[in-house]
C-alpha cells in the first residue's frame, strides 16, 4: 500500500459509497444525540461550564468516578490474567478442542444479560454457594451488594472481549521464531519475553482497552448486583437523568467519561497496535502489519 495508486488522487472511489448507509445511521443515532448532549451540557446556548464545574465540586461525582475507574482496572487485570493463558492454550490445541474452548468463552455472549446477572445474584447472595464456601473458613463474606461482587461478575461477562482479540493476536504469531530463539540458546522464558510477548502486544492492548472502556460504562451488572451505597458512574448517570431530570448535568458527566475514555484509548494506542486493533477482529491485522 505504499505505492500511491494514481486513481486515488482523483477523489474518493465509488467504493466509499458503501460507507454511506453506516455513516448516515451513525450520524442520526449517535452523532446527533451526542451533539445534543454536549450542547445541553454547556447551557443550551447560554454557554456556561457550570455543569462541568459542579462535577468537580459536588463531592460525589469524583468519588464515584474514582471508584468506577478502580473497579474497571481491577476487572481488566482479572480478565487479562484469566484471558492471556486461556488464549494461549487456544492456539496450542487441536481444532476440535479450540472449538470447545471458543464456545466456552462465547457462552456469556449467547446468554441473556438478565439471566447471567440473576444467576450471579443467586451465587453471590447470603446463604448462596460463595457465602457458604467462605463460611467453611469462618468468614462471613457476602459479595452480593458490594463492589467486589460486581467486579467478579463483570470479569466473567467481559472475558470474551479479552480472549477474542488475544486469541487472534496470538494465533498470528509465527512460532518458528521461538524455535529459532531456542536453537540459538535462549531460555524459554527469555524467548517468551523477548519475542512472543512483544508480538502479542497488539492483542493485549486491544483486549485491555476493550475491557476497560466497557467496564467504565457498565450499567446492568452494577445496578443489579451492586448497591446504591457503592454506585458506579453509570448508576449516577441514570439517577441524574431519570430522577433529577438534570439532562445538562448528566450530559456533562457523560462527556467527562467519554473524554477520559478517549484520552485513555489515545494513550494506550501509543503502546502497540493501532486504533484498528480495537475490535474483535483485531488481530488478523497483527499478522498483516509484520
Amino acid at each position, binding site marked *: 500500500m505504499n505505492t500511491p495508486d494514481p486513481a486515488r488522487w*482523483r*477523489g*474518493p*472511489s*465509488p467504493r*466509499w*459509497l458503501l460507507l*454511506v448507509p453506516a*455513516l*448516515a445511521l451513525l*450520524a*442520526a443515532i449517535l452523532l*446527533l444525540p451526542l451533539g445534543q448532549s454536549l450542547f445541553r451540557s454547556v447551557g443550551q446556548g447560554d454557554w456556561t461550564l457550570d455543569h462541568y464545574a459542579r462535577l468537580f465540586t*459536588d*463531592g*460525589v461525582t469524583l*468519588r*464515584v468516578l474514582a471508584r468506577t475507574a478502580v473497579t474497571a482496572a481491577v476487572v481488566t487485570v482479572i480478565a487479562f490474567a484469566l484471558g492471556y493463558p486461556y488464549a494461549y492454550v487456544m492456539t496450542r490445541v487441536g481444532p476440535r478442542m479450540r472449538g470447545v474452548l471458543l464456545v466456552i468463552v462465547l457462552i456469556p455472549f449467547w446468554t441473556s444479560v438478565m439471566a447471567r446477572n440473576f444467576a450471579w*445474584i*443467586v451465587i453471590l*447472595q*447470603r*446463604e448462596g454457594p460463595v457465602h457458604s464456601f467462605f463460611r467453611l473458613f469462618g468468614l462471613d463474606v457476602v459479595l*452480593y*451488594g458490594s463492589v467486589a461482587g460486581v467486579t467478579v461478575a463483570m470479569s466473567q461477562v467481559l472475558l470474551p472481549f479479552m480472549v477474542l482479540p488475544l486469541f487472534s493476536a496470538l494465533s498470528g504469531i509465527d512460532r518458528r521464531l521461538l524455535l529459532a530463539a531456542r536453537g540459538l540458546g535462549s531460555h524459554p522464558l527469555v524467548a517468551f519475553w523477548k519475542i512472543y510477548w512483544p508480538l502479542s502486544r497488539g492483542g493485549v492492548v486491544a483486549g485491555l482497552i476493550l475491557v476497560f472502556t466497557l467496564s467504565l460504562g457498565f450499567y446492568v451488572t452494577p*445496578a*443489579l448486583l451492586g*448497591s*446504591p*451505597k*457503592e*454506585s458506579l458512574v453509570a*448508576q*449516577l448517570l441514570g*439517577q441524574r*437523568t*431519570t*430522577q*433529577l*431530570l*438534570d*439532562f445538562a448535568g448528566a450530559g456533562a458527566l457523560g462527556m467527562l467519561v467519554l473524554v477520559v475514555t478517549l484520552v485513555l484509548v489515545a494513550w494506550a494506542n501509543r503502546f502497540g497496535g493501532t486504533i484498528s486493533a480495537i475490535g474483535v477482529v483485531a488481530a488478523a491485522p497483527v499478522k498483516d502489519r509484520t
Partner: protein
Amino acid sequence: MVSRTVRVGATLSTLALLATLAACGGETTPADPDGNVALTFVGYGGVGQQAMIDNYQKPYTAAHPNITFVNTSPPDVAQVKAQVESGSVVWDVVAVAPAAATQNCGTLFEPLDFSGVDPKDLVKGTIGKCYIGNFINASPFAYRTEAFPDPAKAPKTVADFFDVQKFPGQRGILTNLQNGILEYPLLADGVAPDALYPLDADRALKKLDTIRDVTTFAPNVGALQQAVGAKQVDMFFLADSRLVPLMNDGTAITVVWDTTVASINAFAVPKGSPKVKAAQQFMATVVAPQAVAGISEVLGTAPVNLAAKPNLSENATKVQVYGPANTGKTVLQDVDWYAANFNEVTTKLTNWLAG
C-alpha cells in the same frame, strides 16, 4: 468528477434523512374528545397494568366506544421530558408520583381540571393541579416472621428497626423517596408523625448512618421483594403491593403497625398531548369506588376513595393500611413539600448513599 457528484449526493441524502427524522417530531392538531381517540396509557406493566386495563380501561371503552387505549410501560419522567422538549408527545396518560407531577406542573405536565369530581370520599391530596391519584402504596415496617419467631422478642416499633443492639440482622430499605426512606429514621428519632414536614433530611441521614452497615439499600421494589423472598433481609419497609405476593408465595411476614408511611400514586398528562381533553375525561373516572376497589383487590394497595369496598384476600387484609389490621398511625407523604424540595433531597440522599 463522477465520484464528487456522488459524494455531494450522498451528503444531501444524509441531510434529507436527518431532516425527515426531525420532521417526525412535528406538532399535531388537538384531538376532538368526541371523535375516535386512542389514548396511550403508560403504567408500570405486569399485574398492576393488567388490573388497570380491566378496571379502568375496559369499562371506560364500554361506556365510551370512541375511546380506546394503547398500553405501554414503563413510565419515566425523563422520557416525558424528552418527548415534551422534542415536541413529539406520544404518551397521553402516564403513571407518575404526584410530587413529580406537581414539581413539573405546567412545564412537563398539563394542568388538569377535575372540578367535576366529588372529593367527598377521596383521601386528601388525591386531586392536584396536574394529577389525579388512583391508589395508595403504604410501605409498612415488616419483618420475616422466621427471623423473629418469638413475638415477645420481636421488634414492635419503628425505633426498633434502628436499634442494632437489641435487634441485630440485615435491614432492607428502598432508596425511592416514596417509600419513606427519610420519614422512618425521623420517626425513630422521635419526631412526631404530624410534625414530619418540613422534613429534616440531614437529621434523617444521620439516623440512617447508624444502620448503614447492616442495611441493604434496594434501588427498586422488585429488588427488595427479591431480597425478602431469598431471605437476604430480616426486616424492611416494603410496599404493600409487594408484601402480598411474597406472602402468597409462602414467605411468612409480620407487619409491625407502628407508624406507617404511605404515598399516593397518580396519573398525569404530558404537556402538549393532543388528546389532553379525552385523557382528562377518562382520568376523572379512575377514582370511582368500584374502579379503585378492583385495583386494590388485585394489588393489595389502598384505595384513594374511602367509599370503596374492596373484597380483599386474606393476605391483602393483613397489609391494608386503612383497614382494621392497622392499629397504628399512618402518615401520608406531603406532595407539596416533596414537589418543592425533590431535587434537593434527592441529591442529598444520593450523595449520602454514594459516600
